[in-house]
């Protein structure tokens, strides 16, 4: 177990015009499960590969367990990595795959056996030890790849989209399994994914990357409830947040927001910030569950489409020229083509500056 710190790390690939990673600083506590999440090409893999020692830094430092490691070879960093395509050695059996690193390190044969068997038992792959990777299913390969990482007993586990080659059901299972293993091994873990559901379910702390910079970091709940930017708000949560243009007005000296035809009050804790922007345009963000059907209606809309999801119904409608979606109890959702009255849980909404994208 070890603390990991990235200090002002930068990366510019040769023959690339822009910096891939810029001035990235991140402190990870020992035993913490940190998920790096962001859209494709934002630099997640690059960051992880720099941590692993597979990619050189252009700037900055990396520290693991109070030791500067960015000049060290991967094997000297006390890390293990699980790759998206598993990267199992095709010509070796499962047991040989898992023990390759230990054999290179010259570890005692009996100790290698013990570790491989222990990991295999933990991962439920004991009967597969003599098979070749080709003879395994995707989920089994994934387990072997994790086993290979585990037998090294590393201070830090690195995962690069380990579940993206699995089907949805297996992905859910493996997610739970990874979480369980982390609880048990308590090793510091850095996990890269572009799937925000994975990020939300696995992480102690989520770090949202955008264009090589940290956009926001925090617990899944913090990111979900208080996104710092419009980008994070849109990226985290599924179905995605609704963004609506609004204008700040005053109604009997209290600030209010005009959204299309409707006027809604501003939550008390936002009143002061909003008051400084009377007459200006802002953007509000409402999650699908922030539309309610009980109590006095704030506005009404014609339902364009209703999707039955089982426990809830997702209705789509147009508000202030924007397509919106709301999650409603199935029995209260209006059918397609009819008018639905909606109340807005305005105390939970987010407000953004439309120019900078920052939350107000």
């Amino acid at each position: 177990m070890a603390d990991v710190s990235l200090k002002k790390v930068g990366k510019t690939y040769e023959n690339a015009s822009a910096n891939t990673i810029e001035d990235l600083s991140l402190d990870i506590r020992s035993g913490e499960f940190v998920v790096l999440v962001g859209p494709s090409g934002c630099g997640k893999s690059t960051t992880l590969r720099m941590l692993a020692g597979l990619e050189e830094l252009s700037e900055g430092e990396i520290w693991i367990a109070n030791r500067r490691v960015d000049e060290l070879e991967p094997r000297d960093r006390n890390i293990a990595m699980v790759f998206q395509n598993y990267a199992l050695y095709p010509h070796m059996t499962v047991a040989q795959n898992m023990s390759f690193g230990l054999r290179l390190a010259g570890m005692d044969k009996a100790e290698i056996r013990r570790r491989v068997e222990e990991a295999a038992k933990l991962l439920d792959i004991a009967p597969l030890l003599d098979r070749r990777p080709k003879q395994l299913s995707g989920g089994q390969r994934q387990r072997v790849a994790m086993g290979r990482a585990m037998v090294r007993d590393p201070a830090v586990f690195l995962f690069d989209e380990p579940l993206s080659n699995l089907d949805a059901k297996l992905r859910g299972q493996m997610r739970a399994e990874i979480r369980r293993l982390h609880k048990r091994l308590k090793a510091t873990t850095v996990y890269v994914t572009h799937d925000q559901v994975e990020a939300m379910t696995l992480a102690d702390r989520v770090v949202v990357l955008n264009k090589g910079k940290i956009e926001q970091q925090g617990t899944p709940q913090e990111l979900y409830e208080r996104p710092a930017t419009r980008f994070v708000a849109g990226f985290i949560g599924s179905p995605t947040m609704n963004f609506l243009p609004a204008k700040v007005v005053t109604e009997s000296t209290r600030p209010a927001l005009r959204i299309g035809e409707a006027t809604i009050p501003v939550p008390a804790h936002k009143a002061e910030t909003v008051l400084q922007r009377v007459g200006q345009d802002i953007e509000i963000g409402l999650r699908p569950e922030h539309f309610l059907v009980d109590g006095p209606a704030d506005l009404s809309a014609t339902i364009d489409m209703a999707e039955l999801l089982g426990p809830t119904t997702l209705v789509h409608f147009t508000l202030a020229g924007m397509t919106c979606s709301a999650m409603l109890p199935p029995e209260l959702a209006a059918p397609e083509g009819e008018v639905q009255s909606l109340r807005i849980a305005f105390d939970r909404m987010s407000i953004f500056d439309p120019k900078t994208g920052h939350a107000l």
Partner: protein
Amino acid sequence: MKKHHMRRAFFVTLVIALILCCFLAPYAWIVASSFKNQLTLFNDVTPLSWKAFLPVGGTIENYQSLFKRTNVLTALANTAIVAGGQVALTLLLCSMAAYSLTRVSFPGAKIVFVLILLTFLLPIEALMVPLYQVVSGLGLSNTLLGVMIPWVASPFGLFLLKQAFEELPVELEDAARIDGAGHVRIFFSIVLPNVKVPMLTLGLITFLFSWNSFLWPLVIVQDPANQVIQVAIAQQGSPTQLPNWGETFAGATVATLPLILLFLLLQKYFTQGMTTSGIKG
């Protein structure tokens, strides 16, 4: 429906059989003739009769005199050494060159690769004189090393293996680095075991090429003790006499036999090599 299929299968088989006959006929003739004396041999082809392709009136005299009178056994051994050595050196050199051209990026890598491939286009005949000057300048004329050395840097081999390396996921090497393997270890323990088939293919093609080579060994080796089989057979007749054709054919049979055995043994890889190098590239 079924009848139609049967008829089709019949025609396909017939065509294949015909093509096969065209290819096999010369070999059948060579083998059959190697068991005949000079007179029978000529009688069977003027006019051409079916007897030409069968060892009728067989005699093993040709083989007896071949092994007694000529150095064919030495030549066979020389050829085996040359072909074996050429295979080993070609595999080592081409795999390392192809690997560095695939995985190590250095300025001008593309140009280097294209230049190497261009040498592929030069006919061997055009290279004879300069090659002779270089190899004899190195003091390697009349040696077995001199016979194999110009061909071990094979552009074809480089090309074949480069394709194979490109299809190998880079993550394998990343994983091996994390497991603590260095460059050499990664190359020999992770990369090479995963390109076995292309390596075998290249080995086979090299072996065939080396075994059948004639012109270069003829040029670079004068000493009969270091001569290879193809040249030895061609030179076995004495300059003052008509060649003893039966004996020549016996020599040709002996020279071809190891190749046929090898082919039967490794046929799978051989055809694979032909198709991958031709179409898939």
